[in-house]
């Protein structure tokens, strides 16, 4: 299986002497749906930032589709939902405006949106089930619907790799389940490689083929069914 992501002996600290990550080896194949979990402060978001080339490892190397992640040439193929994604600014951006922003890199920066870009944005809105809310300001929607709008934004760019960092923060349990089912549909229908990062993985456990637990280094990597029972105890995960 060709590799989408390859981390080799990656260590990282935000200042000298600090080790947020240490000796991380991780290979994610194209088309995989992987959950990355671990305690808060365990290095998940740092791992994601290195994986996307937003930070460079202090040691080791990070590759995206075989290229150094920080110099990756096909960035428009990356979709990213940042931790606690929320709308910048106070202007009441609508769902359609937010999702259309996902066509920015792929559709060209200058001038108005082309018809094809508008169609792809509309398709992404339909895929996450927000058609009837498309022209409403995002802020008037529930937390779960707002996350769907941001996922649609990431999808509008037709990504081959979709990374979601804590997408269920502030989302009720019911919406978490439907979000997980939505991602499963995207994975099976579109073949998108999905990296789902969360401090708790209950919602996606039944959908992912692989679970990676991070606590400074990788402490588990395998099918969720192989996870020792003790890891299902939150006190163990967060210890």
């Amino acid at each position: 299986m060709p590799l989408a992501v390859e981390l080799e002996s990656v260590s990282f600290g935000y200042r000298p002497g600090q080790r947020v990550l240490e000796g991380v080896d991780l290979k994610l194949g194209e088309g995989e749906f992987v959950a990355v979990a671990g305690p808060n402060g365990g290095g998940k978001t740092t791992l994601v930032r290195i994986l996307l080339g937003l930070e460079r490892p202090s040691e080791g190397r990070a590759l995206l589709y075989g290229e150094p992640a920080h110099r990756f040439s096909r960035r428009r193929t990356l979709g990213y939902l940042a931790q606690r994604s929320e709308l910048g600014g106070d202007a009441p951006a609508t769902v359609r405006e937010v999702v259309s922003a996902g066509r920015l890199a792929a559709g060209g920066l200058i001038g108005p949106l082309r018809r094809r870009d508008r169609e792809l944005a509309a398709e992404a809105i339909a895929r996450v089930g927000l058609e009837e809310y498309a022209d409403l300001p995002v802020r008037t929607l529930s937390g779960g619907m707002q996350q769907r709008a941001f996922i649609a934004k990431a999808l509008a760019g037709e990504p081959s790799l979709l990374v979601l960092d804590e997408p269920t923060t502030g989302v009720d349990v019911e919406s978490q389940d439907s979000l997980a089912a939505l991602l499963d549909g995207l994975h099976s229908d579109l073949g998108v490689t999905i990296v789902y990062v969360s401090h708790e993985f209950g919602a996606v456990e039944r959908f992912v083929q692989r679970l990676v637990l991070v606590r400074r280094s990788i402490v588990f990597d395998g099918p969720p069914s192989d996870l020792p029972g003790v890891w299902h105890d939150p006190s163990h995960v967060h210890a």
Partner: protein
Amino acid sequence: MLESEFMRLALGAGAVVGVLAPAVGFFLVQRRQSLTGDGIGHVAFAGVAAGILLDVAPVLTALVAAILGGIAIELLRSRGGTAGDQALALVFYTGIALGVVLISAAGALNVDLFQYLFGSILTVTRSDFVVIAALGAVGLAVVGLLYRPLAGIVIDEEGARVAGVPIGALNIAVAALAAVTVALSMRVVGILLVAALMVLPVSAAERIAWSMRSTLALAMAIGLCSSLVGLTVSYYADLPPGGTIVLVAAGAYAVCSIVGSVRGR
């Protein structure tokens, strides 16, 4: 009022700045950088002082200083590890202090600085108006061309960065646009009030708008009306034009806030 050429020129210049200032200010306000225009205005004051010292047209030196100041604020904010408000404070105070020192060195503390600090729209000449209209048209064209990427950064900066959108270059473009706007607006409302015309119409529009695009369009309309109404009121009531324009914009904010509250926003 319209039979006087100075008023026709003032209304023309006011209209251009009334539309351009909120169009550029929109992106600053949405990114919580409302005071950037003020910071650039303070640097423009140093530019005016340098112009007086060097005996060069102060508007030109103010434009150069404003562009350098705008880029400095952006670089300090994004790369220097300096918090946004501290970067602004640094540029604010350095600009105003440099201006005072340069004016003093020129032995020109007795020069009428009021026209730069509070505007002098009634003294706009035909050639001034041509410059204001031409640069204003260029500024609006750039806003129109870059609307999508700039709005995209407002909506989700980190997502845009991951997707390879050139955030740094676009931020510099906004800073340069803000600098040109400040330099043009100097004649209309003055250095001390320039940021008001970049911020108040946008804040007012946010109260009643239904989308991002409508916020921008309403802000430009409110800016235009504030300029024209402010100038008209100042003509008949014999009030200072710059201050009157900004007070009308503040009034528009109050009205929009009330309308927004009534609509249950």
